[in-house]
């Protein structure tokens, strides 16, 4: 039933020094719907595609506010994300209680990273099957961190994870230089455009299947869904037909 003898558990190295169970866990992230995060000098934005199991069911939660200054977006096993988010909420509250300080994002990220690492070195445990984007603002300004099941965490300027997220990342790489100086609105639009890139041809961003989370300097993390994002969707994709051509120029016009 196994592909080889070395992928039964997370405590076995392959002869090449790989841990297959951990690599397989990373595949679970790619099963999840895409999420995107970007930071500017003043803001951090998360955007996500929500899935519903069937027409009449509700949509799966993709962005979870953790503390007033940050939130996470998840791709992969939602129940693993819930475990991690509960832990993050608890740790964030503890920081506010004992130090009267909002927990630094690097700190909370490394705490879940350490937890995740334990699951890759002990028999009887399995790696988390979820990837996270952690975005918000702390004493040192806006931050975006990526968390992977292996316990690898990295601070990013922009990032996309989940199904077909390579398309989103390509968009982000192409527009990388514009993020730092972007305004709040521009940043949200970039995130939505990146999200759109990863969508299959027949799908659209709607107020039902899209979530946006924003935090800024002096602005708490807030989750936007439903009618709250109507305006963003309309203004981001107003000239949908001429999308490709208008993209670059359109933003120049916004600036002036």
């Amino acid at each position: 039933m196994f592909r080889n003898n070395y992928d039964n558990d997370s405590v076995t190295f392959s002869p090449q020094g790989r841990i297959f169970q951990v690599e397989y866990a990373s595949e679970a992230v790619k099963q999840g719907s895409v999420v995107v995060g970007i930071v500017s000098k003043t803001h951090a934005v998360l955007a996500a595609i929500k899935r519903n199991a069937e027409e009449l069911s509700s949509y799966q939660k993709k962005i979870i506010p953790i503390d007033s200054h940050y939130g996470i977006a998840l791709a992969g096993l939602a129940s693993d994300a819930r475990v991690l988010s509960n832990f993050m909420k608890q740790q964030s509250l503890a920081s506010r209680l004992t130090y009267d300080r909002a927990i630094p994002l690097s700190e909370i990220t490394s705490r879940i990273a350490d937890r995740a690492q334990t699951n890759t070195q002990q028999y009887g445990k399995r790696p988390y099957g979820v990837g996270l984007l952690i975005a918000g603002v702390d004493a040192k300004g806006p931050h975006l961190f990526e968390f992977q099941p292996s316990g690898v965490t990295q601070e990013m300027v922009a990032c996309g994870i989940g199904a077909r997220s390579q398309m989103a990342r390509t968009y982000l790489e192409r527009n990388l230089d514009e993020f730092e100086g972007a305004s709040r609105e521009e940043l949200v639009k970039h995130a939505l455009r990146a999200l759109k890139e990863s969508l299959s041809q027949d799908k659209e961003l709607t107020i039902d299947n899209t979530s946006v989370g924003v935090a800024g300097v002096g602005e708490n993390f807030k989750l936007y869904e439903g009618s709250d994002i109507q305006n963003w969707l309309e203004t981001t994709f107003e000239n949908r037909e001429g999308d490709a051509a208008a993209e670059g120029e359109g933003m120049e016009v916004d600036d002036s």
Partner: protein
Amino acid sequence: MNHLPQAWGRPRDDVYGAYDASHLQTSGPQQHTQSPIVTGTSVVAVKFKDGVVIAADNLASYGSLARFTDVKRLRKFNSQVVVGFGGDVSDMQYLDRLLSSLDIRENYSTTETPLNAKNLHTYLSKVMYKRRSDFNPLWNHILVAGLEHENKPFLASVDLLGTTFSSPTLATGFGAHLAQPILRRVVPDEATVESVSREQAVALVKECMKVLFYRDARSLDKYSIAVVTKDGIDLKEDEKLESQSWAFAEGIRGYGTQVN
């Protein structure tokens, strides 16, 4: 007499009867610290427009004995906070080590903002309250002096019960009775802080240290004084009270050697 500690200095059993060991039994309710042993006395502090001045003398008393005369009771935390300890000296040393381990942890990352005085006071108040709730208090009264966000002067206290209190002027121990009124005469409220200069604040604290030395039998004329501003901490640990005048003692009945 035998070698056992409970027999040390005891009269001989054969003459005076056996030692009553009933109070040495290990059963019964568990007890923790019932009183401090080696103690430091007052800590005084006052805010001024750019920061805080804090002082404490260098004496550690063993009861009424002036046991150690070079004990530094003001402790720096990173480069922005000074913590002043009154009360039990060994508990102070424990807290000092606790703060040092916290400082080491905080310095693993050089990119994060350091804990400020307010953060530290919150932390200490949780430590103190936890210990009193365990019926095992750290027998100290602590002043935390430094700056909070936007470089605003910060001064607050926490005691062995975990009680917190903040005011533009603070003093622990004997100083709470003797120094606080003097401090309040100059800095009655938060609004006045803006008009107090560094020199005024230092002079005021020194005046308090002098009054405390005159009237507090567990005090010393060698003291430490620190000024915390946004430029850092200026800590002097070997100051001597200047221009003492004991002339006033003449007229006071029962003061010093004069009996009546």
